[in-house]
């Protein structure tokens, strides 16, 4: 049953104030993961989404990594598009391409390396439904405008609902990267534009049998999918970032992301850059006859471990993009799995905090249901019983940052922090000079003429060595990036 479709009943004006143990701001991946975790362990959860449905405000590149989701819910019922059967990494100069492709036989078998292309409008709605089925109440078209503080503690949220304030002992902030509420409430600083990427994406379809055209162009069978990543000047010009191309069921997602700092200093307009990338000779034929189905944009927090805000406060926790949990080390571009993982650990910490408070629970707990603003399900509704007030301090929630620290989320962010910094320093060499040298060297190496192969081999090697600064330079470069293979 799609519980989100089952809105009925007379408009009502239910009062949510003091009726819930926890409020989750934002029904994206982190928010719903937190809601599922808390509701499953018996807490009464109010999940608030500002869009008309969960996913309505969400944009991402296109590949969802699902190890944590698999632990939380039945992934087989998830609306995935294709599993990733081929990963391709490509360096583009203005005219040339040097690429490596990886297709692993095992990826064709479940669980498909937990990598699927998805459409967030479908996926996030499904994921929020899982929270509702666990007993959470979801309200959509409701914007949290501010947090309520009493004695320094966060005790609830202000909303645009007629009844306005909703108080609960815990607020989980899962409002995404553009985290207005968390920032205005002083729970985090506004990130510097060096730490934020701007991303644009187009979903394209082909006239006629779009699915078959995609399968032919990407050499796909059944539910196979492709994930292509592009770097270098041909992808994002003089910016630090990359472009991507993913296959959905019968559409493709193409886009790019790069630092806002570069956008403004190099004067690179995202939509113009997208047009230029799509016109690169290495990719342009893929888009032949394609039609834009949807265009979207988002900002991505890429500041890494050192840009993470305080994760817990008196009465509040920060999760997902709001907590800056995105990994971009060039090869790995991950955020959704970290969002789910953080939501899970945050939810567990809230459960633990309530356990230690040993609050007597009212018998008529709030009934699960889904409501849009001003609407309530006929069989749904909210408890009339006001909760006894509970105080949850940051120290009660400390198991969240502790367990996140132990998880792959912070491990990865910390491990790759050095890499991002180096790569930014070496941007000119890595994304412009070296790709050009490699393309020239490859052209030299593969030249067919009447000279001996050895001559071309020597010239190719010289071309690369010249760019990296000779043998000394090559050793230095290798040393700078030695930790990559650790």
């Amino acid at each position: 049953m799609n519980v989100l479709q089952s809105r009925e009943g007379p408009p009502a004006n239910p009062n949510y104030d003091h009726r819930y143990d926890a409020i989750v701001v934002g029904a994206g991946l982190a928010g719903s993961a937190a809601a599922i975790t808390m509701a499953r362990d018996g807490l009464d959860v109010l999940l608030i989404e500002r869009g008309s449905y969960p996913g309505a405000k969400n944009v991402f590149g296109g590949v969802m990594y699902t190890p944590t989701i698999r632990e939380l819910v039945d992934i087989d019922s998830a609306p995935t598009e294709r599993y990733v059967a081929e990963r391709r990494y490509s360096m583009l100069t203005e005219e040339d391409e040097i690429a490596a492709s990886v297709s692993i036989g095992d990826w064709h078998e479940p669980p498909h390396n937990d990598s699927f292309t998805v459409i967030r409008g479908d996926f996030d709605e499904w994921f929020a439904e899982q929270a509702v089925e666990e007993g959470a109440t979801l309200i959509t078209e409701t914007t949290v405008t501010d947090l309520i503080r009493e004695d320094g503690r966060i005790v609830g949220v202000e909303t645009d609902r007629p009844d306005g304030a909703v108080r609960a002992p815990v607020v989980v902030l899962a409002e995404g990267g553009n985290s207005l509420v968390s920032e205005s409430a002083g729970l985090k600083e506004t990130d510097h534009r060096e730490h934020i990427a701007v991303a644009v994406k187009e979903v394209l379809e082909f006239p006629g049998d779009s699915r078959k055209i995609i399968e032919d162009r990407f050499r796909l069978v059944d539910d196979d999918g492709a994930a292509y990543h592009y770097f270098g000047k041909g992808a994002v010009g003089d910016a630090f970032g990359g472009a991507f191309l993913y296959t959905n069921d019968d559409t493709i997602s193409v886009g790019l992301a790069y630092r806002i700092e570069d956008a403004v200093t190099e004067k690179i307009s995202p939509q113009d850059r997208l047009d230029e990338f799509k016109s690169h000779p290495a990719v342009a034929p893929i888009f032949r006859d394609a039609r834009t189905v949807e265009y979207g944009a988002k900002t991505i927090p890429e500041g890494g471990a050192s840009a993470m805000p305080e994760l817990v406060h008196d009465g509040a926790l920060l999760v997902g993009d709001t907590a800056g949990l995105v990994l971009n080390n060039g090869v790995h571009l991950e955020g959704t799995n970290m969002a789910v993982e953080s939501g899970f650990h945050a939810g567990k910490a809230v459960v633990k905090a309530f356990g230690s408070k040993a609050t007597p629970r009212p018998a008529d707990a709030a009934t699960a249901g889904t409501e849009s603003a001003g609407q309530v399900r006929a069989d749904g509704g909210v408890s009339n019983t006001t909760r006894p007030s509970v105080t949850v301090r940051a120290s009660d929630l400390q198991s969240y940052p502790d367990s996140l620290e132990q998880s792959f989320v912070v491990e990865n962010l910390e491990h790759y922090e050095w890499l991002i910094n180096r790569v930014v320093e070496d941007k000119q060499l890595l994304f412009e000079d070296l790709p050009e040298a490699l393309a020239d060297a490859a052209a030299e190496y593969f030249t067919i003429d009447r000279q001996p192969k050895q001559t071309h081999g020597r010239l190719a090697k010289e071309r690369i060595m010249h760019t990296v600064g000779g043998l000394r330079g090559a050793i230095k470069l290798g040393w700078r990036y030695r930790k990559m293979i650790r």
Partner: protein
Amino acid sequence: MSTTPSETIENASLEDRLYTVKYQDPGESHLDVTVPGICASKCKPGEAECVTVCPADVWRQSEDGTPVIAYENCLECGSCRYACSQNNVEWSYPERGAGVTYKKG
């Protein structure tokens, strides 16, 4: 190297792209500038950071330098907020489900 055969891509115009996104007008702008005078004094024509970064042509500069905000184009990415070195962008979420609604995000 100028003989590379190139597919000519017919990209949708920005206007056409923006038409693909469902939009509900909240009735008033969710975007503003904190101090209008700052824009005119700090950002020369063609230099405004918000204008450069915006993927939806929301921000434009009028001749006297003050910004014109086509808020109904907004994709709600938030990049203008970070781009502005004067910290002069006022941003609030459109309320009651208004603004963009993505289906394929």
